[in-house]
Every structure is written in structure tokens, then in C-alpha cells.
């Protein structure tokens, strides 16, 4: 029932309001005395060299991609798990096939070295 979710929405609004208040009020409480040194990017007391916004190594992207694939597959498990007791053996076999396909992909990326960090 959608009405069940109303309290969650309320909680969301309350939490957001609290966060806003907590972040905005101190802004008017503290002193303000900015200078170039203070607002510099911190790099261990040295002037920063180059920008930090740059191409990031492909590794991280690969992790994100792998996560996308596997997480969607994990999401498929949820409804299955809820009605598993009704599906019985049929559900087991169905999911066995699904897990097998998942495993093939998993073994493939493992062998391909996508899980290596070197």
C-alpha cells in the first residue's frame, strides 16, 4: 500500500531538515576571515601541483561495471527468495541455472584478470 510509505517520506523530510539546519546555522556562528593561504588546496604544506580533476585509472571504472552487473543479478534474487518456499524444486532449478550463468561470468572475469589490482 502506498500509504505505508508515507512515514518514510516524512522521515526523509525530517532528516533533510535536520541536516540543513545543522549545516546552515553554524555558518552564521563562526568567524569569517578568509585568506588565500587558508582557502588553498591542502597538499601537505606545499603548493598543489596540477589539478585533481583528471582521468582516473580504468581499474575503478571496471569495478563499477562489475558491480553494476552483479548487483543487478543480486537484485533478481530478492523476489525469488521471498517466494522460494512456494516455488520449491522448480525455483531451485531455475535459480541453479541463473547462478550457473552468473558463475560463468564470474569465472570469466576472474580468469581475465579483472579482479587483479596489479
Amino acid at each position: 500500500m502506498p500509504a505505508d510509505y508515507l512515514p518514510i517520506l516524512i522521515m526523509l523530510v525530517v532528516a533533510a531538515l535536520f541536516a540543513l539546519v545543522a549545516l546552515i546555522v553554524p555558518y552564521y556562528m563562526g568567524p569569517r576571515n578568509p585568506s588565500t593561504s587558508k582557502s588553498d588546496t591542502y597538499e601537505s604544506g606545499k603548493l598543489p601541483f596540477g589539478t585533481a580533476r583528471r582521468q582516473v585509472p580504468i581499474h575503478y571504472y571496471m569495478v563499477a561495471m562489475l558491480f553494476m552487473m552483479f548487483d543487478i543479478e543480486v537484485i533478481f534474487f530478492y523476489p525469488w527468495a521471498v517466494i522460494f518456499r512456494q516455488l520449491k524444486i522448480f525455483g531451485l532449478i531455475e535459480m541453479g541455472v541463473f547462478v550457473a550463468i552468473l558463475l560463468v561470468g564470474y569465472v570469466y572475469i576472474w580468469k581475465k584478470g579483472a579482479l587483479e589490482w596489479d
Partner: protein
Amino acid sequence: MTDLTYDKLKANFPDAVLGKETFRDETTITVDAAQLLKVSKFLRDDPELRFNLLLDVYGVDRRDLGASPRFATSYELYSIPHNRRVRIEAPLADPAENGKKDTLPAIDSVTGVWGTANWLERETYDLMGIEFKGHPWLHRILLPQNWVGHPLRKDYPIGGEPVNFTADRDNPRFAHLGKQIMDTPTFHSELEDMDAEGHLVVNMGPQHPATHGVLRLAVELDGERVISCKPEVGYLHSGFEKTGESKRYEKFIPYCDRLDYVSTMSNNLAYVLAVEKLMDVDVPKHAQYARVILVELQRIASHMVWLGTHAMDVSGTIHALLMYAFYWREQILDIFEMVCGARMTTSYFSVGGLRWALPGAFEDSVRHFLKGFPEVIKDFETMLTDNPVWRTRLEGVGVLTAEQAIDLGVTGPLLRAAGTGFDLRKAQPYSSYDEFDFDIPTATEADSYARYKVRMAELWQSMRIIEQGLAKLGKGPHRTADRKVALPPREEISTSMEALIHHFKLVTEGYKPPVGRLYGIAENPKGILGFGIISDGTANPYRLRVRGPSFVNLQATDLMARQGLLSDIVTVVGSIDIVLGEVDR
């Protein structure tokens, strides 16, 4: 006695060898600067010589010694296979005398022969103003890049320059110094051969939680992988060598405490031994044993600092181990406090013996410590040695093979963890170490874990030495009876005119060693500490050279950290065990 090194050199390079001098069993061979490179290669490669370890490179400004030409560079060589030492000196004329005002005296760089010469030559260039031809990257190392002059030259004044201790770039009053430190054109000098576009170049330090004081590491990263890691030092430079030239021999002892400030007793010992050798003073056995006990206690204390900080650096969160290790270091510092009143800056050893006699409770308190400490080491070992996370963080990280280590002049536990059982306490025993029965722990893996194991094993060996020292200690005079270097006892001054005169002379003038030079080395917890002294017969050293083991060992960071991950840098720096006081001097 025939001198093999000299004879072989003379036979092979008759026109390169200019002379030979021996003082207190140390040979100095003067070599023509133009042929230095050839001679160096020969010294390193000749199977009978094999001077594979270059301990030190330093320049001497001989203006006031009456020697000509004005400059000379000295190379302290050590042959680990043959356990032999020699000093090569190459005199250099000053081009300024011939009217070439801005030209520095130049000599061939020996970096191609001994890798360790890299930083040592940079330091000589920085402080003495000697140019090394063929050096891969000759820039100032301890002083800011735009510093004017070379401080160790005799015509450079001591003091007198205004120094502003604030470096705020926004404040016009300090604009100059602020610029000097922050904005010099070579500010990113270390990055010159780094690919700042393709890779991420990050500074670790000087204001960084993991770099043990003001060390800067410029790290070139490809993702998490380290492409190169260049240490930059000098933030703590305080001109110890220059200061030493204006201090009496005895007065320099407190400065030694400020070198490696977690192993002060060891520093004191190395310096005092050098001066004693220079003066040819004998130290009573009681004092020698006491020194050994204290130095080994200091070794334990130093290793405790290393263990605690290393564990915390690597693991980030085992504060527990840091606190436990420091707790036991405190026990040792308590003993030091009882002995000399100071916990860290001890200055307890004086030339000729100990500054004061040991207090009566000394032996008991050391025994008390020895009783409790083995349990603690076992605790540490259970916490770490077989801890799977600890092992995976250390094993195979920062590998430095024996060959690489010797080439880079790396000594101490790092070298021993690479399988070379080289320890001066055994190789060239000093302070009666030859009377003690102990082993040199070694490991062969040459990685950070091997260093960890070696240092932990050294704790046990130090305890063995201390136990034997306590057995031998007995009673006896705590300093030499030689009134030329050691103050007479108080009661003697009231009765003996001669004692009063000695006292007066020592206090007002200090002692004056004979003219000569030597280079004293000792095995510190972190490696070989060397003091090179050139005496002109006055109460102050003419030239005082300090070789800090951390300084030389730190050079290996790049090699060890390469191809590791970012986290491994912390492991590597921790396993080198540096103290910036000694690096920057």
C-alpha cells in the same frame, strides 16, 4: 707494514696516486682528481680490494690549513668482503683564485661507481660548493634551491644573517622568505622527471601524518601504483657541521643528542670514540662496559620507537602496540634519567669515559628491566609475527637486495635483512664489543618483513649483551686518569696544584688534539654513524663531518617504493626507520 691498497694503486696508477698519509691506523691516499673515476672503479672491482661500500663523500675547505690547492673531496671506503677501510682524497683547485669568480671547483662524479654518492655529492655541492661532473641531478639538497653561497666554506660567516621564522605568503613582511620556501622556480624540482600529465603527482609531506617529521615525498602515481617516489629533505637542516667547527670538541657532545634523537647514547658513543681515537686516550674497562650496556639499552629503546610507529603507520589503527612499545621505552628512559638526569638528550659519555659514575641502583634497575622485557617481546611477537594482515602488508614489500643496499650505502638492519651479516660491532669491534658473545641476526628475504624479523631478533641479542655487560661491569674508575682530557676529581683539586691547573686549562681552553684526521664509525640502531674529524691542533675541530645513517638509507626509498602501491610507501619509510634530525642535521 705494507699497505696492500696503496701498493696496488701505486702499481696500477703510478701517475694518479699523489701521496699517502697514515694517522691512527687510518690511511689517506691522495689521488689526482682527473683520474678519480678510474681509480674508483679499480678500488671497487679489484678482487683483492673490493671496496664495495662508499661510506661517505665530503669536501674540505683547506684554506686555513695552509694546504694547496684549496679544496679537497674525501671518499670514505669500506670493503665488506675484506673488512678494510681506506680514504681517498682528491685535491681540487679553486677556479676563483684564477679570476673565474662564479666557477665552482669541479670533479668527476662517482655516482656511476657507488650509487650512494648521489645524495652525498649533492650535499657536498650544496654545502661546500664543489661541482660533480656527470652527476645525474646536481641540485641543492639540504638548503633551499635559491640559497646564496656554500656555508661550509671557511669564508662563509657563522651567524649574522637575519632569519624570519614565519613563512606566510600573504604577509608582505615575510614575503621574501615565504617566496624562498614556497615559490621558488625549482619548487617542484623533484618532479622534473615525473610525468605530471599522465600520472597523479602527490606530495606526501612535509605536513603529513605518516612521514615522521618534515620529510617530503613526491610520489608519482598511476592509480594506486607508485611509479616513482622522490624524497626531499632539508626542512630540519640546522648546520651541525658548521656549528661543530666553532665548538670545542667536548662541547659538540650535546649536539650529537640532536642528531638521531631516539638513540642519543649511541650517537654520543660514536662521537666520543672518534675523539678518543684522535687524542689516543684509553678508556677504563668499567666505563667501556657501562657504555656497551647503555648503548644496547638505547638500541632497544630505538627499536621500540621504530616498532610502535611502524606498526601504527602500516596498520593505521594499532595504537595499542604504539602505546605498549612506548611504555617499555619509558622504562629504559627512566634508567637513563637515573644515570644522567636526562631522558632523551643524555650527553652522558664524555671523552675518556663517562661524565659521572654510574649510580648505585643502576645494575638493579637494568636487571629489573631485563626480567620483565622478554615477556613483552613475546607479546609483540604474538601480536605481529604471525598476524596474517601484518604479514601480507610487509612480505615482499620494499625489497632491497644486498647488492642494491651496498651500492646505495645502506647499512644497519636493512643490510642485514638482505642476508649480509655486516655489523661493525663484529667486523671492527669498538668499546670492548669483542669480549661479548652475541650473534648478528640476518634474514634473506630482504623485504620489510625480513627487516621486522631482524630488528625483533636484535632485541634479544641486545639483551644478551646487556646481561654479559652487567656480569663484567664490576667496580672501577669511570673515566680515564689522563688529566689532559678528563677533569680531575673534586677532592684532588683542593690538594693538588697540578690538578687545579689541569682543571683550569680544561675548562677554559679545552683539550687540543694533535694535527691529523680520522673518520670514526660505529654501529647505531639505524646503521653506521660516522664522524669525520680534521684537527688543526686547536681546541675546535677544523672540519667536522657527520654521516647520518638515516640520510644515506633514505636514499633507497625510491628504489624500494617503486612498483609498489601507495600504502606500501608508508611501509617502506617505516621499515627504513628514519629520524629527520639525523637526515637533515
